[in-house]
């Protein structure tokens, strides 16, 4: 039976009620990245949302890239962010850092400076106190210095 427009809309409406499991962006990333993410997340599903990744879309130098990850969370004793995990797609190693928080953190936000070897995706995943995982993916364009010196 062909799907009418009305049926499609009702289907689409019902989808918003069911939590959407978004694994699609991860499929686009290399297997190595997927493996290390699975090492942290296990079999749990990763949802998109809650996590914000502040990183310059066009970085001035890939050797030192400022980055801030924040997670929308009340940070109370029964609803807080346990940890934040940051990964990259194209460095020699996919891990960037793991950051462990607790309710007394007050605010689920960390900043650091990272190295990005090339234009690539950066993935930040938060583990909440209910052991749900939330992620955000950012595309970062890395430009290189025009006049690099000889390697010492």
């Amino acid at each position, binding site marked *: 039976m062909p799907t009418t427009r009305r049926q499609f809309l009702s289907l689409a409406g019902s989808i918003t009620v069911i939590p959407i499991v978004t694994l699609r962006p991860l499929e686009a990333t290399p297997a190595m990245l997927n493996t290390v993410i699975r090492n942290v997340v296990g079999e749990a599903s990763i949802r998109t949302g809650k996590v914000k990744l502040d990183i310059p879309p066009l970085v001035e130098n890939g*050797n030192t890239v400022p980055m801030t990850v924040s997670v929308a969370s009340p940070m109370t004793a029964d609803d807080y962010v346990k940890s934040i995990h940051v990964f990259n797609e194209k460095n020699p*190693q996919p891990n*960037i*850092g793991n*950051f462990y928080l607790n309710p*007394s953190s*007050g605010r689920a936000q*960390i*900043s650091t400076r990272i190295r990005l070897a090339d234009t690539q995706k950066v993935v930040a995943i938060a583990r909440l106190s209910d052991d749900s995982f939330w992620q955000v993916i950012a595309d970062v364009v890395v430009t290189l210095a025009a006049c690099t010196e000889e390697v010492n």
Partner: protein
Amino acid sequence: MAALINVPAKAKRGDIIEIRTLTSHIMETGFRRTMDGALVPRDIITSFTCRYNGAEIFRADLFPAIAANPYLSFFTVAKESGKFEFEWIGDNGYSSTASASITVE
């Protein structure tokens, strides 16, 4: 090794305060080679911990993708006057510490 710590000297009880730390370290990735092709061995800080009056309030695992002279900023709730202790641990037995005090009113 030099470290720069930014903790507010004073805070009101219950305030959420930002703590910023910067420490000297080369963070040699272990993926670079010298001109004659020899691999430069990895030499990085692998772990950072912050304790507030003895209790761990923040911890991080660092990887070669963290830039040289690691910078970390994080938050905590000001609960009582006392001392923040910072510890960096790394390859080749590397260890360094720093501390800062806070007055909570």
